């Protein structure tokens, strides 16, 4: 193939060209806008080089929201394509690319940054810390993740998107059957983003273990911090598998090794096994922090302490262990025999037990409470029944003999959307609405927020419940078309309508943000929800150093007890605070990673070598760099404190 031919999109269509133009114009508008308002310096100083966990968190949030809409458009396109039999809106190749990128984008570039946003923003605040354990590593984590995301999204305008499904099973994803560079993008972009995530995991485990405020024993940590801790432990155990897996896959594609291809003893199901050894725990990396958020929101608006704190913690620990013991349930149909299937069937069903404990604990938290239906609470109470439905269909899928009928069908698609959307997406939206005032200093409009939650739920039910039925009627997943005679058309049309309704909800969310930026009152104080944990005990907006005086913790709901039971949070005087310096190095190094990745995708070896040297040079530079951070003086802190206290009143 000619050198330049590889950069062309192999299966162009009007839609792709239109998006190219759209992306081009948007980029241009952004660059022109930043230049016009002379914001480049501000961007560099305040955001790109920042090591502040709150700002890094916000950048994760922006990425996640952006990707939510990219993945959402993919979803709508798929549902529209399937809404009618023999639809010709997308051809088979384009549909395959769309569902592949929908899956990758939604799991890895939407849900993951969304939870990492919460880790970043909340964990240090909840444990009364100034920052994470390794602030600069945190910046590097973000920028690597961001560059991975960028590289992946580049695929659909340069060289072609991956088209082998988000699970990318070999040999389909091998060179023989997947000839464009799409799968190279998959391997390398996820690799770069995954390294960032792995470092996030190490960073937060250290932060949570070493940087808790005095008095905060492990069993006094807020539930979200517990969930973040366990999720990060899972990250550290699971992501290395992904790293190795993608490295092997990359070698198969670029260097002609035979790990997963069918010649020379390569084993295709080895990919599937390793993929799900990472992939199944990944599900719990996403859902446990979501559980953590619900465990913050439900007690706050039930005006009661969380019921069964200890069993909540225990259930999360058990789930994290079990999450590594069930991966083979993703391929009961591999022919591994009834004995292995039985083992994995039982371990999978066993996860329902700790999960059930959590559901009941939330229900008992509502019991004898004084329940207020704010927007975050509305998401939480809608989550309980919808997630239960998703959970029980998971138990159905776990029965391996019956799974022979569900496997690879729309029933499965319905199930995992039924856990991921009410589980993760609702939690993210609930958490976003809940923490929005802490982050930005004003509330999102409640009325619009409730409308969003309701419309989203109606759309969700319409979009995904019909899939259970078409699945049982023999509709396989990933089919780009079907004939009239199958009888799938009515339910698929309902599904499309549901997807459209969900789209309305997301548009309403954007409108809500716009509306609230313009019209919401700004004098809301630092604790607008009358909340319970430490993150609400500091000012809004949160000062750079989080807490002027490190709080003293005596219970699981430190802030609540300080408000109601006279626990004293702040003892002693203000002292000078040590903070890390900003650094451009993480960003620069990640940019080189991006070039490295891009060159690797297209096998441009000279550039690969040069950028690899660049990366090593960055590492070497860092190891000789002397940077001891800086101190914020007592006067400066006092001044900030007075100003913020003034703003509150």
């Amino acid at each position: 193939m000619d050198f330049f031919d590889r950069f062309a999109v192999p299966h162009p269509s009007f839609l792709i060209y239109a998006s190219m133009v759209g992306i081009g114009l948007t980029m241009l508008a952004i660059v022109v806008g930043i230049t016009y308002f002379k914001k480049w310096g501000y961007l560099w100083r305040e955001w790109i080089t920042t090591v502040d966990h709150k700002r890094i968190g916000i950048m994760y949030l922006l990425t996640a929201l952006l990707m939510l809409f990219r993945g959402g458009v993919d979803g709508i396109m798929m549902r529209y394509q399937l809404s009618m039999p023999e639809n010709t809106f997308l051809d088979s190749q384009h549909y395959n690319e769309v569902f592949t990128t929908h899956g990758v984008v939604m799991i890895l570039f939407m849900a993951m940054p969304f939870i990492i946003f919460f880790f970043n923003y909340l964990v240090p605040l909840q444990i009364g810390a100034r920052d994470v354990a390794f602030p600069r590593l945190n910046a590097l984590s973000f920028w690597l993740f961001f560059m991975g995301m960028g590289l992946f999204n580049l695929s659909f305008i340069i060289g072609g998107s991956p088209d082998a499904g988000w699970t990318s099973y070999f040999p389909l994803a091998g060179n023989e059957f997947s000839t464009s560079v799409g799968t190279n993008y998959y391997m390398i972009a996820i690799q770069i983003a995954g390294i960032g995530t792995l470092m996030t995991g190490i960073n937060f485990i250290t932060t949570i273990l070493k940087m808790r405020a005095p008095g905060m024993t492990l069993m006094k940590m807020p539930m979200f911090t517990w969930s973040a801790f366990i999720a990060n432990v899972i990250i550290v155990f699971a992501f290395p598998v992904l790293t190795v897996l993608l490295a092997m896959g990359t070698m198969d594609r670029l260097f002609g090794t035979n790990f997963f291809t069918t010649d020379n003893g390569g084993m295709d199901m080895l990919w599937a096994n390793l993929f799900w050894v990472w992939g199944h725990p990944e599900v719990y990396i996403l859902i446990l922090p979501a559980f953590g958020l619900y465990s913050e929101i439900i007690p706050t608006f039930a005006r009661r302490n969380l019921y069964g704190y200890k069993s909540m913690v225990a259930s999360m620990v058990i789930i994290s262990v079990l999450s590594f013991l069930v991966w083979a349930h993703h391929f009961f149909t591999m022919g591994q025999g009834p004995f292995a299937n039985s083992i994995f069937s039982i371990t999978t069903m066993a996860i329902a037990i700790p999960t059930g404990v959590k559901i009941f604990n939330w229900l008992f938290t509502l019991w004898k409470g004084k329940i207020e239906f704010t927007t975050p609470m509305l998401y939480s109470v809608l989550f309980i029944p919808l997630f239960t439905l998703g959970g029980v269909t998971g138990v159905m899928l776990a029965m391996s003999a019956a799974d022979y009928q569900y496997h690879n069908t729309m029933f499965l698609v319905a199930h995992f959307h039924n856990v991921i959307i009410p589980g993760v997406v609702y939690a993210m939206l609930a958490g976003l609405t809940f923490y929005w005032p802490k982050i930005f200093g004003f509330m999102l409009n409640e009325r619009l927020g409730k409308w969003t939650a309701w419309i989203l739920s109606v759309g969700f039910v319409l979009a995904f419940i019909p899939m259970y039925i078409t699945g049982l009627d023999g509709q396989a997943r990933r089919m780009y078309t079907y004939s009239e005679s199958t009888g799938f058309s009515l339910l698929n049309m309902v599904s499309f309508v549901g997807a459209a309704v969900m789209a309305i909800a997301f548009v309403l969310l954007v409108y809500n943000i716009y509306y609230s930026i313009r019209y919401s009152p700004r004098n809301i104080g630092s604790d607008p929800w009358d909340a319970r944990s430490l993150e609400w005990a500091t000012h809004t907006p949160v000062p750079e150093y989080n807490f002027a005086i490190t709080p003293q913790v005596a219970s699981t709901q430190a802030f609540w007890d300080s408000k109601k039971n006279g626990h004293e949070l702040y003892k002693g005087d203000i002292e000078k605070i040590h903070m890390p310096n900003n650094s451009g190095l993480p960003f620069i190094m990640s940019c080189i990673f991006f070039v490295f990745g891009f060159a690797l995708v297209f096998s441009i070896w000279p550039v690969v070598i040069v950028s690899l040297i660049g990366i090593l040079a960055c590492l070497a530079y860092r190891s000789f760099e002397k940077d001891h951070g800086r101190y914020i003086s007592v006067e400066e802190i006092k001044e900030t404190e007075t100003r913020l206290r003034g703003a509150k009143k």
Partner: protein
Amino acid sequence: MKLKMKWILLTMVITISTVLTACEPLLVLDPKGPQAKTQADDIMLSIWLMLGIVIVVLAILVFVLLKYRASKQPKDYEPPHIEGSPIVEAICIGIPIIIVIFLSIVSVKSNYEVEATPVGYEDQEPLVIYASSSNWKWHFSYPEEDIETVNYLYIPEDRAIEFKLYSYGPITSFWIPQLGGQKYAMSDMITTLHLAADQPGEFMGRNANFSGAGFAENTFEVTAMSPAEYEEWVEEVHETASPLTEEKFEELLEPGHLGRSTYTGTHLEFAPPPEHDHGSANTDGEEDSDLEGHEEHDAHNAEEHSNH
């Protein structure tokens, strides 16, 4: 607002149960063979059990939301601090454990059923059919009859069928919903699927595992017929069909869609299936391909693969 939610959820539950039970049967829930029957029974059992759980959770939720919402309570009501109760939590753990144990027993029992010769057919020799996929076709080899078909399958009713599945290319999944659940067909090993049709009829069969551009149309038709009709068909094929040559087979393997076609002879002679064709299996000194002694090999395969 709160009432609306209740109604939406109730409608949802009712819709699911009515659609699943009242309307014309869904393929998976309309079994035409013993294996599919086992699976359909498991599915219905689990649907009812799970529906019960959903309803209980929903009922508790609606009850607490209605009873304990702020607007229903006196202004000065201070919710109590409750750490948790061992008895309540024991119940919340105990009942799910019982349910999971029950379902595990059902699941394990069914596992062994669907992985063996169908119940009621144990005494007869199963009809062995090699089903292999290539982009995006299905090749069915009948070694006993010395016949090969493409994209359609004729089987005698009331006879156990033992499918030997493998693939020329990506992983595919052989699935005839009304006869039984699917199993992967892979290029580096053979998997075995036991099915049987207990009545004549025409059934949909397809590849259920995504295998690239032509995946959606990767289907085949299955016709179950009386043994006499089946014998007639076999004879007819021997009289009318042309033999399958190696060149012809290579041609058939080319990616693309084809209609139905029929041949005498099978590709098993010149293109042996990947029995013991990968990795460790070659080193343990067993002979490569043995079409008759497949049963021991299966046991061996199962054991070997569960270790991976």
